[in-house]
């Protein structure tokens, strides 16, 4: 898709951790009683419904728990429209809502030592990001300074931060500030 531009295309900051925009990502919002949409989602993606606050990943796709009646499905950007249409079709008989929201949000990928990743987050969020409270595979929705955000440690050990696209500049600047090379707290 030659003309599609992610919110913060190519953004990258190298500090105590590296902050980079993930680029175009498919994101599908699923609303409905989770058990009623579980089967259609499993059929279409092979992904099981995650536990409360959880995220499951498989084959380049991921399914995240967002609320007791909301999940987000991550996939390739170019697959999202078709996948959303298929899921809408498959859940047509249920009380459910499927929306392709691939353009509404920005995702940043943070790489570095896990302690530094946690420290970067701790400068911005009131959420408890100690390893026992925020293990890999948990999605925490909270705020980063003044912006709403969701974040999780993925299977590959990277920290993913998702925010609305309108505040992508702000959140990128926040993460860069928090990842400043001279900003070590060495707490974790």
């Amino acid at each position, binding site marked *: 898709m030659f003309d599609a531009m992610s919110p913060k295309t190519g953004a990258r900051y190298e500090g105590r951790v590296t902050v980079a925009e993930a680029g175009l990502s498919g994101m599908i919002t699923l609303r409905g009683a989770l058990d009623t949409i579980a089967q259609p989602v499993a059929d279409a993606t092979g992904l099981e419904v995650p536990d*409360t*606050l959880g995220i499951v990943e498989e084959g380049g796709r991921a399914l995240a728990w967002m*609320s007791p009646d909301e999940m987000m499905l991550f996939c390739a950007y170019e697959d999202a429209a078709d996948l959303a249409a298929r899921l809408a079709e498959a859940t047509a008989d249920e009380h459910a809502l499927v929306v392709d929201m691939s353009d509404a949000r920005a995702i940043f990928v943070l790489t570095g030592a896990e302690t530094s990743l946690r420290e970067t987050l701790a400068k911005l969020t009131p959420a408890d990001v100690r390893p026992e409270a925020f293990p890999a595979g948990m999605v925490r*929705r*909270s*705020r980063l300074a003044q912006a*709403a955000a969701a974040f999780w440690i993925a299977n590959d050990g990277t920290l993913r931060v998702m925010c609305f696209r309108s505040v992508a500049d702000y959140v990128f600047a926040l993460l860069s500030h928090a990842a400043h090379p001279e900003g070590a707290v060495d707490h974790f």
Partner: protein
Amino acid sequence: MLILTCPYCGVAADETELAPGGEAHLRRHGPDSSDSDFEAYLFLRRNPRGLHLERWRHAHGCGKWFHAARDTMTMEVLGTYPAQVTAPPPEIVHASDADTA
């Protein structure tokens, strides 16, 4: 700076992740209600020194509204519970009775 545990996602949320919604368990009065009922619904609020049943939304989180039973003097939280009820659950009523006893 309160911490309230969201009954939906289980997160012990910092007050800055929450949005307050005032007194809980108000009964809506619609078009055919009397002036006094409507006034009470719209404007008259309890302001207790002690147990307060109140609404909160886990706004920077799972987005769900819930209720909290909080002592306005001691900040003790007797419990949080879902918003889809018209009265507090019995265990909170009992706990508050025990507190005042």
